[in-house]
């Protein structure tokens, strides 16, 4: 599959979606899958996904180390701490395709076919008749409708919001179910509706859905729970009688006979268990730990593999956001100075072994990230707003300041000092004071865990040279959350990962109307009419081309306003495993899935 072809398909998608607005003879169409833009990559009778190994042996076990503990096996409500892997107990209506040239596609899993109304007001799922729960009952449309209604009433908040737009659900016959969206329907809504774990009605009718419990759940999925030790571990076993093991979407998937999830309260203990082969798989999230902790004979000898798996999807972006509700950050040049003073290259070298890349945009590594000069389409979006934009948005290319990595960063600091002077700040007896308001510039960094300290410590020393005194407040959990909600900080780190397509969460992160809402993700309190317009345009655009134009335009405006200090972007997953664990040659686009891995040890 070459790039040209995929572009052609994507453009085709744009045409299709434009065509959707013209009156059409097609009232609906039926398919084995649905893609956000254009057609699904895999045809109806494909044999297996390219990133699966259809010949993977079904044997052995995976022992995963997880942090923390758990006290409930009821996965679908907010209460309780749940162990990892419960989703292996359930099937969903459709499964997401993760190929490298699919942006967002889902293929039938419990559903054999889906019939989509051309105005996206409804979708009809035709279920496979062979689907059965682990207790032998067939999976029916009743179960689907029942599950969906449970989620909408009392499910997890994020599942609830996923099905917020559903108007109603009808059971047409035992194997056919229709979900209605009314006017709120869109391709995205239909895609999301397939991501529905189906629960057995006959079980849940006799149980309280709203309370956590340690009862072993019944599902129709590939694994069943064989033993539970609350807080310490849980074991899943592959079901021999799983109804869907020969489906193309499941070919080469679910290869471990057993999966154990072991819980540790302490990373060191988990790594030690990996070294002694008590566990054979750890997913690591912290690069500092990755470099320091995962060392020793087993790693150098290769018995344990340290794998850094890159993926090609929007990155995790860590950025420091300004609290724009404070008058001291009002001037764009002030913010630019603070961004300029940050020495990323040095930090990356000293603390992260040069393994991070600088985040250049909140939309890093997605087709929404802007580069170079604005394209014609972007200009078309931006020009009407030009009065409210920094002049450079339309005329220049944005680059972040870079340094020589010595940690001294003198040139940039001089530039920052000039910018601060332009913005009216002056150093008086070692304090940076505003010449008009008389306000002294101090910065209070709010950090959610001590692990962020190394990254900010050096920055604080640097800011001293500009006459800015700053302090760090480390609060964890509830207290951090409370301070965040009360907006009691000057700068705080936050993580972004843009979703494709950008949807409502972007509104609550960037739009003015949310800057006053305590629980919103507009932490920095951005209030900018231009951004409001662009966000709205982006969320409402439904073709690839429009999405791209709005996304890139928005990206430019965010950058040139210096609304945040981008730190690093993560485009990789860190995972350490015993060398007898194997993975397919081709990785899926959105990060690996351990379901496709297998155990090489012959019995």
């Amino acid at each position, binding site marked *: 599959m070459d790039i040209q072809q995929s572009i052609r398909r994507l453009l085709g998608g744009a045409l299709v979606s434009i065509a959707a607005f013209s009156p059409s003879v097609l009232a609906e169409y039926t398919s084995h899958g649905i893609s956000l833009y254009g057609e699904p990559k895999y045809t109806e009778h494909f044999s297996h996904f390219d990133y699966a190994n259809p010949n993977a042996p079904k044997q052995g076990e995976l022992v995963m180390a997880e942090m923390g503990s758990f006290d409930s096996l009821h996965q679908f409500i907010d209460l309780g701490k749940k162990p990892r892997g419960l989703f292996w107990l359930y099937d969903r209506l459709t499964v997401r395709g993760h190929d490298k040239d699919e942006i967002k596609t889902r293929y039938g899993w419990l559903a054999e076919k889906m019939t989509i109304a051309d105005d996206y007001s409804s979708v009809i799922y035709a279920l496979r008749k062979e689907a059965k729960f682990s207790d032998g009952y067939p999976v029916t449309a009743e179960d689907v409708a029942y599950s969906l209604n449970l989620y909408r009433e009392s499910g997890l908040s994020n599942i609830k919001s996923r099905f917020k737009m559903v108007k109603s659900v009808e059971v047409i016959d035992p194997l056919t179910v229709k979900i209605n969206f009314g006017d709120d329907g869109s391709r995205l809504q239909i895609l999301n509706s397939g991501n529905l774990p189906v629960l057995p009605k006959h079980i849940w009718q006799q149980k309280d859905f709203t309370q956590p419990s340690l009862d072993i759940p019944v599902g129709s999925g590939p694994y069943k729970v064989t033993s539970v030790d609350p807080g310490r571990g849980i074991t899943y076993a592959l079901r021999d009688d799983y109804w869907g093991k020969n489906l193309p979407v499941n070919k080469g998937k679910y290869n471990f006979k057993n999966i154990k999830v072991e819980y540790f309260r302490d990373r060191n203990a988990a790594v030690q268990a990996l070294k002694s082969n008590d566990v054979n798989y750890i997913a690591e999230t912290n690069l500092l730990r990755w470099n320091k902790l995962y060392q020793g004979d087993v790693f150098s000898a290769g018995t344990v593999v340290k794998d850094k798996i890159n993926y090609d999807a929007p990155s995790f972006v860590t950025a420091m956001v300004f609290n724009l509700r404070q008058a001291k950050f009002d001037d764009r040049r002030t913010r630019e100075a603070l961004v300029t003073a940050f020495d990323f290259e040095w930090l990356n070298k000293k603390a992260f072994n040069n393994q991070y890349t600088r985040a250049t945009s909140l939309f890093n590594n997605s087709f929404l990230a802007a580069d170079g000069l604005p394209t014609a389409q972007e200009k078309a979006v931006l020009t009407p707003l030009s009065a409210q934009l920094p002049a450079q948005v339309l005329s220049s290319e944005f680059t972040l300041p870079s340094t020589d990595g010595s940690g001294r960063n003198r040139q940039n600091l001089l530039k920052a000092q000039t910018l601060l002077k332009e913005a009216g700040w002056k150093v008086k007896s070692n304090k940076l004071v505003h010449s008009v308001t008389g306000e002294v510039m101090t910065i209070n960094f709010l950090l959610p865990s001590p692990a962020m300290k190394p990254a900010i410590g050096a920055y604080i020393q640097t800011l001293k040279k500009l006459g800015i005194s700053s302090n760090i407040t480390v609060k964890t959990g509830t207290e951090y959350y409370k301070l965040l909600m009360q907006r009691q900080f000057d700068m705080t780190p936050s993580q972004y990962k843009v979703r494709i397509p950008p949807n409502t969460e972007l509104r609550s992160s960037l739009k003015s109307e949310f800057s006053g809402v305590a629980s*919103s993700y507009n932490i920095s309190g951005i209030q900018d009419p231009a951004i409001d317009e662009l966000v709205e345009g982006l969320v409402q655009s439904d073709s690839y081309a429009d999405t791209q134009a709005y996304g890139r335009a928005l990206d430019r405006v965010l950058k040139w306003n210096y609304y945040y200090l981008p730190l690093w972007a993560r485009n990789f997953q860190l995972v350490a495993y015993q060398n007898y664990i194997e993975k397919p040659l081709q990785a899926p686009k959105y990060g690996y899935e351990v379901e496709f891995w297998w155990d090489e040890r012959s019995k």
Partner: protein
Amino acid sequence: MKLNSGGMSARSNMFNLYFIRRLLLVFPTLFIIISLNFFLLQWLPGGPVEAALAKQQGIDSSANALFYETDQITNGQLIDDQLRDKIAREYGFDKPLWQRYTETLSRYLSFELGTSYFSKLPVGELIFSKLPVSLSLGFWTLFLTYLIAIPLGVMKANNQGGMFDSTSSLLLFIAYAVPTFIIAIMLLILFSGGVFSWFPLRGLVSANHADLSITGQLLDYFWHLCLPVAACVASGLASLTVLTRNSIIDQMAQPYLDTAICMGESRTGAMFNHVLPNSMLVIVARLPSDLLSIFIGGTLLVEIVFSLDGVALLGFEALLERDYPVVLGILYCYSLLGLVLNLVGDLIYRWVDPRVDFSEVNG
């Protein structure tokens, strides 16, 4: 404090009166402790409602976050007031403070511990499930402390003023004065991954515990307990050893011992027949307060350092997550235990040394 080794049946009316009075005092004290804890919790920034909301938005509030980076990616969820109110209702936070207070109080007065906010399990059950770990730690610590301290105390008494006595005293005092968790961390760094990796880092048993033979299981258990118990014992050894030593020296200075020896008893015999039994009384009198300090005192940080999933850690995590019923329940159990043990300790103390009296001074 000198020991009177004469007849010690001080079961006078005074004593009974004192006992009854102390017993009656337990309840008001318990009442004040519960109230204090309840109101202290209310003062904590961010209550269970915020904790639940933070969870909704994907913010980890467990003890892990204290020491490690969590990959926090908030899910962009908006919390509407409806949800907030629903959660507040769920935890009873829609009621006024005094009403919550009286409800809590009446619950505890009927020894009802309630259920956890977040896991919905009964608090009693939660505490009970963590007991094996805390009891293991406490029991072996106590056992080893007594096992080592008493012979050591006797040896020191025999060597009174000698080299062995003074050196061991010095070491014991140092171990006593260094915070328990510092010893724990040193052991951890030295033997559990920092310098040598001889001991495991986590929990009470290994992951493959179930597959081991009975002997293997026992070995595994002790192998895991080795360092934490060592840290606790090191701290607790000094007081008991010194007490043993001093009471033996005390007893040996008593005139009756000379009498016994004059009457032909051998020295060793005298030691075993008179000195040790009398000294033991004092040592037994110490048992309640030792129990208390071991079970409640130093165990929290040791549990944190060695990732032992015990009651103290449960309480600490519940505190971080604002799971009030669990925190209050644990504190309530501890306080009750503490009061009872205190009472028992005082009674034994009086019984052993009747000259200590608590009557008022007529001045």
